């Protein structure tokens, strides 16, 4: 009798537990579904990319490399914030949001904070033109002004904003705009790297330039589904493919070595080695070609 009572109690507990858990999952789903942006299917990305995604390194890493090589700040490398009114199509607006984002990273890493606000206002204007301003929090400009001297804080604001752009565009089935922003950011970082590589002959910067070979291949993969969208997309992709031919002339050597793992720090140290061999000819040709691509976007 006692046993039956215990079994009944257990059954009730398990039933309640299952109900509780199902309900909690359901609530989670419901709360997600209540957000309109979550309702839109984002699977187009996966189908177009054959279930492989291609990532592009943050353009800010290139600016760190330049700063860490003790190279002086050069404002003439940047796209003027006053050019924003020249960008009247979604295509040029998206590419230049990417370009200005990298420029802010460059300004930030050199602590040129007084110029950051005008660049950030430009990005805000272009994002409004593109209809993606909701990625900006209403108080964000004020928060940036209040934290203008804090480089780390500004970098976090910027990367968070670009991640929100990306998320918003994916959720609203406007992936091509997101890919153009990424493309603009990468083009600007390669341009800044290549000018410094040619002028400074700094080995670390030359290597970092050569290491953009696979990110460029990934970028072309990301853009290729939009080749037939319009002539401007086709021209951009053709120019990047032409640039990739020059990168094919770079020799990349790789040798595997066993990683070291530190589980308590959740850390793996990757000891594999790579090195780059790039000729003066390829360096100059890449510089000329990326400058030409960039000029066609900013003017």
């Amino acid at each position, binding site marked *: 009798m006692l046993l039956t009572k215990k079994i009944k109690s257990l059954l009730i507990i*398990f039933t309640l537990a299952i109900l509780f858990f199902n309900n*909690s999952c359901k609530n989670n789903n419901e709360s997600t579904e209540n957000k309109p942006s979550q309702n839109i299917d984002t*699977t187009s990305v996966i189908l177009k990319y054959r279930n492989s995604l291609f990532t592009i390194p943050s353009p800010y*890493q290139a600016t760190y490399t330049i700063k860490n090589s003790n190279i002086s700040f050069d404002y003439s490398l940047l796209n003027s914030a006053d050019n924003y009114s020249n960008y009247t199509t979604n295509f040029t607006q998206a590419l230049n949001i990417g370009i200005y984002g990298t420029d802010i990273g460059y300004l930030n890493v050199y602590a040129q904070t007084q110029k950051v606000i005008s660049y950030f206002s430009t990005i805000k204007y272009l994002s409004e033109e593109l209809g993606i301003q909701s990625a900006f929090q209403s108080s964000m400009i004020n928060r940036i002004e209040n934290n203008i001297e804090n480089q780390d804080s500004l970098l976090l604001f910027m990367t968070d904003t670009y991640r929100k752009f990306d998320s918003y565009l994916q959720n609203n089935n406007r992936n091509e705009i997101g890919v153009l922003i*990424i493309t603009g*950011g990468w083009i600007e970082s390669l341009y800044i790297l290549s000018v410094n590589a040619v002028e400074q002959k700094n080995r670390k910067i030359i290597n970092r330039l050569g290491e953009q070979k696979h990110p460029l291949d990934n970028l072309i993969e990301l853009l290729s589904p939009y080749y037939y969208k319009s002539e401007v997309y086709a021209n951009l992709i053709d120019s990047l493919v032409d640039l990739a031919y020059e990168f094919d002339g770079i020799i990349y050597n*790789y040798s*595997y070595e066993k990683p070291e793992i530190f589980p308590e720090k959740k850390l793996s140290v990757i000891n*594999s080695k790579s090195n*780059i061999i790039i000729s003066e000819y390829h360096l100059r040709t890449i510089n000329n070609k990326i400058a030409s691509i960039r000029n066609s976007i900013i003017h």
Partner: protein
Amino acid sequence: MHKLILLITILLVSFSIKAQENSMANCSDLLNSGYVSDGKEYKAKLDQNNKVKFYATFFGDSQYRIIACSDITDYKLQLSVYDTEKNLLYSNINYNYSTYWNFTFNSTIDCIIEIGINSKKQEHNEVMLLIGFKEK
């Protein structure tokens, strides 16, 4: 009997916390400790083998955090990193299916990040990858 109720409660609460930790909505919370986002959210549905591959370049002298997220609760999410010669550099299977892992790259390496689940039937869930970096 009380012990049993307590045990069930603990199991449910801990499972609920675990499920929330690497959910798609909470994924960016794991991008902390000085790691800065690369500005993208890489999302994709699992393929017929319940896996998704991401191609990435990691620069030398940099530190990265790789985070794998999903709303899948029935299976543990597997995160593996290979070089382009298919040498396994890391798998979370050996580390309690950790949601994220930090990496220090001494040289620039092209990698393949694989996120998936171990299930015989095909699932159609979406997974998300976040990559954060910081300079050494």
